């Protein structure tokens, strides 16, 4: 039997994060291939109800300490290192999320194990191969961990969460481990800014990206959204430019939306954005780059300049509605 595989179970505000199930699913497959046990570890407080959700693991370790809620990467990594030594763990899976980011890198420094980021596929053929996506999903890289030991950051949305969900009651083990004092201290949550419009409740979203080129052009998208009875949202570059408020951001850090229609204008479809809108019922993408990744997932695509198409489209929709 090989060294154990450990999943750092991510949770936020009393809920297990979706990435945790994705990691457990990926870990389960790997555990079978390697003939290794699959463990999960929860750090924080009030962990028992959370542990009950992790039946896909052979064993769930609980380290109860309120200081471990949103603990710094250094504090979390110190505990994981200790646990790896105690429980003969060779491979650790962490979430490639904003919440967990940083923990894997620090753990890799402290253990001397390699760290692989952006992983979306793992295969085993006597050595472990991680396939990671780079450059906004435009390039894949295969990284080999010859002895199967390392720390892997799992990219959200890459592994099915369903595979890591189980009704089984897991074996739980409470561990008393020393918690290193941290100088990075969590103070409070800041709730999402209430915008004028809640984009998660819209049936139709017209999304604008870098390709929209200027703040003035956002008005074109607004007009189209109005014609469709929807609202305008945006990818990160547009929000960072200050062209639309934070409440309109779709993607990894922003909102997750599932409208009936998602019309993406000048959005390349970087994985960070895709994560937030992949559940949309109908995706139509307009982009000047014929190789934009958004065309791989969209239902309909238009290779062209959104700025030329949008006024014509808005007029025709208005005419159609007027005629109806």
């Amino acid at each position, binding site marked *: 039997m090989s060294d154990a595989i450990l999943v750092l179970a991510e949770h*936020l505000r009393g809920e297990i994060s979706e990435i945790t199930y994705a990691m457990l699913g990926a870990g389960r497959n790997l555990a079978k291939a390697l003939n290794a046990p699959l463990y999960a570890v929860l750090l924080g407080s009030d962990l028992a109800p959370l542990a009950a959700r992790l039946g896909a693991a052979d064993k769930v370790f609980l380290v109860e300490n309120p200081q471990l809620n949103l603990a*710094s*990467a*250094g504090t979390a990594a110190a505990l994981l290192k200790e646990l790896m030594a105690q429980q003969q763990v060779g491979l650790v899976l962490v979430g490639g999320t*904003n919440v967990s*980011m*940083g923990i894997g*890198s620090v753990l*890799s*420094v*402290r253990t001397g194990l390699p*760290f692989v*980021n952006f992983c979306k596929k793992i295969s085993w053929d006597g050595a472990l191969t991680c396939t990671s996506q*780079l*450059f906004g*999903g*435009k*390039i*894949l*890289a*295969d*990284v080999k961990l010859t002895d199967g030991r*390392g720390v892997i950051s799992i990219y959200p949305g890459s592994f099915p969460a369903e595979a890591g969900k189980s009704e089984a009651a897991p074996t739980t083990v409470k561990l008393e481990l020393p918690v290193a004092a*941290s*100088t*990075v201290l*969590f*103070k*409070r*949550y*800041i*709730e*999402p*800014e209430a915008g004028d419009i809640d984009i998660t409740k819209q049936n139709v979203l017209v999304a604008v990206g870098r390709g929209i080129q200027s703040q003035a052009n956002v008005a074109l998208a607004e007009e189209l959204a109005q014609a469709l009875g929807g609202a305008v949202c945006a990818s990160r*570059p547009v929000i*960072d430019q200050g062209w639309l408020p934070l*409440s309109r951001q779709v993607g*990894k*850090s922003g*909102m*997750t939306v599932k409208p009936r*229609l998602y019309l993406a204008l000048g959005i390349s479809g970087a994985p960070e954005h895709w994560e937030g809108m992949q559940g949309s019922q*109908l*995706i*139509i*993408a307009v982009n000047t*780059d014929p190789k934009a990744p958004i*065309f*791989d*997932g969209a239902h*309909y695509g*238009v290779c*062209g*300049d959104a700025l*030329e198409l949008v006024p*014509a*489209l808005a007029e*025709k*929709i208005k005419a*159609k509605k007027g005629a109806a």
Partner: protein
Amino acid sequence: MNLFVLLKMVPDTVEELNVAPDSPALDAEFLRFKLSDPGEQALEQALLLKEKHGGTVTVVALDAPEVDEVLFTALAKGATRAVKIGGDWNRLQSFAAGQILAAFLKAAGSALSADALVLLRSQAIDDLEGEIGPYLAEELGVPYAGVVTGVTVTGNSMSIIKEFAGGLRGEFTLPLPAVLGIQSAEKPPRYVPIAKVRAALKSAKIETVDVAPPARLARFALERMYKPEAGGRAQMLEGSPEAVADKLVEVLVQQGLI
């Protein structure tokens, strides 16, 4: 404050990326480089802090194509000093990059002063070994926070805003000196006219320093790089904007959306 900004050049993904025929790397021939987006945000956050608290902003970059232009632009925007670390860093991954940058900062001495703050991107699109920030902080023995979108400094400590998901954010406190991975600055990156960059080209200077490269540039074996196979490709609609608009209206009617 003693502010350092570490800038990273990345291939512009607007251009087509190709893999080199003989090695697991991008084909350099057609690459156009630009400053990584969060790197631009890190610079802006540093400039905002300098405006508020005074002090200096030192921008530091590893040598890469088109890096001089980025460093001169940073000077034109208000950075005090620009430093380029010479060498061939094509195959460099994050852990070794952290070691190199830490070596430079330690040699610079002032990097670990009580009012020192190192800002860099939270994560670049090619950080296959993860963010550099945590590695750098470990090497320097100072605290780190990433995915930061706001920084308020009070004396020798600061409060930062970190993004989680779904618009939810958190406030954390940590002492200086520290390393911060910036996701976005409190304001959009400032615009600098070309004339000012040209003026910086004439009047300012980029210092070049050498740092001995670490023994290993990567801690894993990068076997292969390749383009993903196209997934379920979208049904492409072609024609003039008018013709495409007509086809889209048809689709929307079919789907009961109008």
